[in-house]
């Protein structure tokens, strides 16, 4: 494998620039991200009908391949696939064949033999979905549902959809991402998406111990003091404190973290009066966010969940569409040869 082959944006686009896998936001331009948001808008409308289902992926098989459990992400992917009329298989790999010694490649070969058309992959190792996309049979689409500390592109895109719904556009917006950026796969994807879509300023607000070394190179400003960081904000995105990932003493205590970086009404009052509050869930009430804020009028946390289904429907149908278009293209080339 050469470095060029490994480049994810060659891997995830067809030769005419359509999505065929969805692994990372790296290499995707504003036009494509906007297409994803526009397509998702149409799927939101489907979710309001009496029959919340369209026949796009009828007869296709989607396998949710979760090497790391995540109830919310898995269930929204499952619902999204079902609303596209696909057949869905949920595989919790941590309790399955790999614990009997089967290798990842063998597991995949078996699933491909069941004529699967799409794998939705969640893995604790960065790059796992990318690895699978490289080795999978042509025609099978891979969707990244979160890998290591690397990326969580559907979560970032559902956040973008939520922001666009409430603010109309990205130009001129000041957005802050607050909390455990170091362990967050979604923060990287969010910073990337906000920059590509044209937000005026992206800020990260966190203690130095919860920021990666290279954070500014991702395209954001750093603010250690939340009281200063909240000024002029149009959007504040709270991150979950990933307690299960916390290694070593990065924080003095939860209570201390809440005092410094938790979002309460006093801190929110420092932002723009129409600032919206977002959180990927599940919420640690009283650790990152005060209940009065999470349930308050500026909170759009539940919109994010609804939008998550629409974004996943959009990405799944676009990637599947890219795969079939590419297969058709190859067939016609072969026909001409």
């Amino acid at each position, binding site marked *: 494998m050469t470095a060029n082959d490994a480049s994810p944006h060659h891997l995830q686009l067809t030769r005419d620039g359509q999505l065929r896998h969805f692994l990372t936001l790296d290499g995707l331009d504003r036009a494509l991200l906007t297409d994803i948001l526009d397509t998702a*808008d*149409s799927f939101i409308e489907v979710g309001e009908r009496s029959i919340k289902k369209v026949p*796009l992926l009828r007869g296709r098989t989607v396998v949710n391949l979760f090497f790391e459990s995540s109830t919310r992400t898995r269930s929204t992917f499952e619902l999204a696939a079902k609303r596209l009329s696909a057949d869905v298989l949920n595989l919790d790999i941590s309790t399955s064949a790999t614990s009997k010694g089967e290798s990842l490649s063998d597991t995949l070969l078996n699933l491909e033999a069941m004529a699967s058309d799409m794998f939705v992959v969640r893995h604790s190792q960065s790059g796992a979905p990318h690895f699978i996309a490289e080795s999978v049979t042509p025609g099978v689409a891979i969707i990244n549902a979160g890998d290591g500390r690397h990326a969580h592109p559907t979560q970032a895109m559902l956040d973008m959809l939520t922001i666009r719904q409430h603010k109309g556009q990205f130009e001129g917006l000041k957005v802050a991402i607050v909390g455990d950026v170091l362990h967050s796969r979604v923060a990287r994807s969010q910073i990337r998406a906000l920059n590509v879509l044209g937000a005026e300023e992206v800020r990260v607000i966190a203690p130095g111990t919860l920021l990666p070394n290279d954070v500014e190179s991702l395209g954001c400003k750093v603010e250690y003091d939340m009281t200063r960081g909240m000024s002029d904000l149009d959007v504040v995105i709270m991150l979950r404190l990933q307690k299960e990932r916390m290694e070593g003493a990065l924080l003095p205590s939860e209570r201390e973290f809440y005092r410094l970086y938790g979002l309460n009404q006093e801190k929110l009052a420092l932002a723009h009066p129409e600032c919206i509050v977002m959180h990927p869930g599940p919420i640690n009430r009283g650790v990152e966010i005060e209940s009065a804020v999470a349930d308050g009028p500026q909170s759009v946390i539940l919109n994010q969940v609804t939008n998550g289904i629409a974004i996943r429907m959009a990405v799944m149908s676009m990637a599947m569409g890219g795969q079939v*278009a590419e297969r058709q293209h190859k067939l016609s080339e072969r026909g001409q040869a």
Partner: protein
Amino acid sequence: MTALLDMDQLLDQMETGLRQVLEHRGVESPVLIGIRTGGVWLADVLSKRLDIEEPFGELDISFYRDDFSRIGLNPRVKPSSLPFDTEGRDIILIDDVIMSGRTIRAAMNEIFDYGRPASIILATLIDLGARELPIQPDVTGRKLALDAHQRVKLRGPDPLRIELQEAGQ
């Protein structure tokens, strides 16, 4: 050719045809649904001509097309919008051009996902024949037989006009 396709005349024909069908079937309060994009422009015009005050619906059939496995998803899809409950309603479904009938099949499938209508009347501006499915319009502005290299397209919304294109243009 353009003289044969006088828009007012075609719309008169559709209006008269629709009034007759509605009367014949005893339909009193129909709702209009236009298929994007041409059908929506026509629904706008016809709702005024037929004095239907209830706002018309707009249908984008991209999610219901039968050629997804050949060409993938239409990247220009927009949300459908039906500002009424279709359950039990008499619907006038409008499109600009009917040919294979596949668009209408997709549109009817989509309408049923909003609820079960009492009836659907199909009205098209132009019928090009060449049907591939057993679907026929109840009302049509004009039947047209094109040469193999010719295409017809409705331009609009204001003014509405029909363009006859030679293939490759």
